[in-house]
């Protein structure tokens, strides 16, 4: 993220100069093993890692492959491992991460080619939490469900998830257990769990679905996911809240 700078800095040339990048390369038909390739690009103050990769692709090596689309931290296509941290290439400035800029695909995902990873497992995890609205009742035609502004505000941050996979890549339990739903999917579940338009019944069902051996209790509360989320979401806190509620629900059951 762009850091605020003093005026004298801003007045100085916007040129940062040439910057070196070390980029992970792997083309299955050509390479037995992944390799790193070094490139040098001219960067300015505002040059992002994605800009630099596109520059390399357009002027130096057209075979360099990276998923990207919106260029504005919205589509979630370009989560990469940049200087040892999961970040979106399009909102990471070259000058902020230090040289050389080491760019790798997301750890804990299979590499298809270069910086492109296989997202299918991630999508399966998302689907496993039944990520669709389960309203308290069937509305009359034209009837809108009411929701208090406070309730809407409570889910504002988790709603911003762009499915980039940065969190899931940073999560060690997700790395060892393929069926662990992982931080993104659990945050998605939380988005519905907290939405008051879903009734009590739906809320209980959601917890039941998340309580299996690959659900909320798998979380080690390491906060890695929270640290890397480019949207400032804290899946860890969402998971902790659901775990507490699930435990309470169980206790209530045994006390009966």
């Amino acid at each position: 993220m762009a850091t605020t700078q003093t005026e004298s800095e801003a007045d100085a040339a916007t040129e940062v100069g040439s910057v070196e990048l070390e980029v992970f390369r792997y083309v299955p038909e050509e390479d037995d093993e992944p390799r790193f390739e070094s490139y040098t690009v001219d960067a300015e103050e505002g040059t992002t890692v994605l800009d630099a990769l596109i520059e390399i692709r357009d002027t130096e090596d057209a075979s360099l492959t990276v998923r990207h689309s919106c260029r504005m931290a919205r589509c979630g296509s370009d989560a990469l491992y940049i200087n040892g941290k999961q970040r979106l290439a399009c909102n990471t400035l070259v000058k902020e991460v230090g040289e050389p800029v080491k760019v790798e695909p997301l750890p804990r995902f299979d590499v298809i080619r270069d910086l492109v990873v296989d997202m299918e497992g991630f999508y399966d995890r998302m689907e496993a939490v039944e990520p669709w609205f389960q309203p308290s009742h069937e509305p009359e035609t034209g009837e809108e469900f009411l929701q208090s502004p406070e309730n809407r505000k409570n889910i504002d941050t988790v709603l911003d998830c762009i499915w980039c996979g940065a969190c899931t890549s940073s999560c060690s339990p997700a790395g060892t257990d393929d069926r662990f739903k992982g931080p993104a999917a659990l945050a998605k579940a939380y988005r519905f769990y907290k939405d008051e338009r879903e009734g009590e019944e739906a809320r209980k069902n959601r917890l039941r679905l998340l309580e299996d051996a690959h659900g909320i209790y798998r979380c080690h509360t390491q906060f890695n996911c929270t640290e890397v989320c480019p949207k400032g979401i804290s899946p860890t806190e969402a998971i902790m809240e659901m775990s507490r509620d699930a435990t309470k629900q169980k206790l209530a059951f045994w006390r009966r």
Partner: protein
Amino acid sequence: MHSHEVIVVGAGGAGLRAAIAAHEEGADVALVTKLHPVRSHTGAAEGGINAALKDEDDWEDHAYDTVKGSDYIGDQDAIEAMTEDAPSEVVRLENMGMAFSRDEDGRMAQRAFGGLSFPRTTYASDKTGHMLLHTLYEQVMKRGITVYDEYYVTRAVKEDGECHGVVAVDIQTGRVEGFQAGATIFATGGVGEVFSHTTNAVSCTGDGMSIAYRAGVPMEDMEFVQFHPTTLPSTGILITEGCRGEGGILYNSEGERFMFERGYAPNDGELASRDVVSRAELTEVEEGRGFEDGCVHLDLTHFGEEKIEERLAQILELARDFEDVDPVTEPIPVKPGQHYIMGGIACDSHGATELPGMYAVGEAACVSVHGANRLGGNALLELVVFGKRSGRHAAENHLTNTSKSAVEDVVAEEQSRVEELKDRSGGEHQSEIRADVQEAMTEHVNVFRSEEGLEEALEIVRDARERYESVNVHDTSDTFNTDLVQALELRSIIDCAEAITLGALERDESRGAHWRYEHQERDDENWLKHTLVYPGDDGPRVEYEDVEIKKYEPKVRSY
């Protein structure tokens, strides 16, 4: 070979809504998309979606605002269909779980937007598109609709004057595959990549328009391109009109609130229609009252941090991250940038095109509801209203006699086109040709257009078409070859650029977003008509069609 009753190409808001509607009608429907659905550019929409929801509001006022906004060249029957359906479609989104912002009474919140006579833009913070896209995709998952993601559609299969499906490259493996379908709906989005300064994603390359055009379906009203007045100068990233809807002010370098003080829009000021504001800004800059980079200033500092964070959180993030400006304490530099295309694949208000079996919807389509200028908040609305209508119509009327061998033939032809592209040596790399087209279009086919500039642009675009004959792809791999995909996209870009420029050159009047230096007035006598660009043997052929006028006779448009 895949086979479905209905194939929807594209999985942004329009494609997803169409697929849901077709599925609800009981059709076997599948989505084919070059991006995974949630990566689609609908996710970038910020400000909101229009609907006359409130008791004090009336859908007919919404219809009139839209007709006026279109500078009287939108089809009034289609506009009425859209605005009348708007309330139920927006409530439908809410019922699917979409997280709109809320008023104190728990109902969906609405705000003011440019060109609207009532604050009817229903919003979800400044992330309306993101919420809409994800909500619709959730419903697609719930219904178990098949999605072929990361498949790049290259061509429609046309046989005996009907559309029998499409052919696509599986981006991950490089395989060329056929999709046989009784109805094919193109929901492929806009054309931002035709220009170098745009709010659009790099995936907005006009593929659907080009594919339909090459199958003989005309592109309609392509000269009407919207330039949004508030984009960030360095990246083209959009700063939503919602900022002005909430009370944001535009200043020139002399500290004047020029929209009022210089008489561009004495009544509505900053909330005049987009074409009006973009022209005003560039006039200020040209007359020496702008800031660096050809910008003016958008000031939100009087809002206070809390209001910005609550209603315009994304703007805060975007301005800070991408322009190094903090809107809480300083004005945001903004300038016009390509944003939207009013034109597209010619179709009726069920999305049906001239070619039986082929439909179009969303930004790729021209129904036409936006005419010469789209109102903010009407594009997302178009996606859901016409998404539903086209999905339904396609499910009920799909062809039943499509030919598998016709699809197979086209698979073979596209296979050899792709192979040939990859094997070729010499020639220029696709990225060079692409850059030349984009620069020429931004320079000459922008907010202000002159005959000389348009002719120059047309020459550059036609030259690009010749250069494309020997275009070179460096990457020869079959796995995730984006160099190849970009080369395929470049042909779409050239097709759309040519139609835009040609339409603009022929239309010697000024209307909505199309402004001609030599003809600065609207000319209803000669130009109350739609432009249709057809493919011909020696390049494009231009025809015209009357505008559908019902209640609202054209009158002078002022804000």
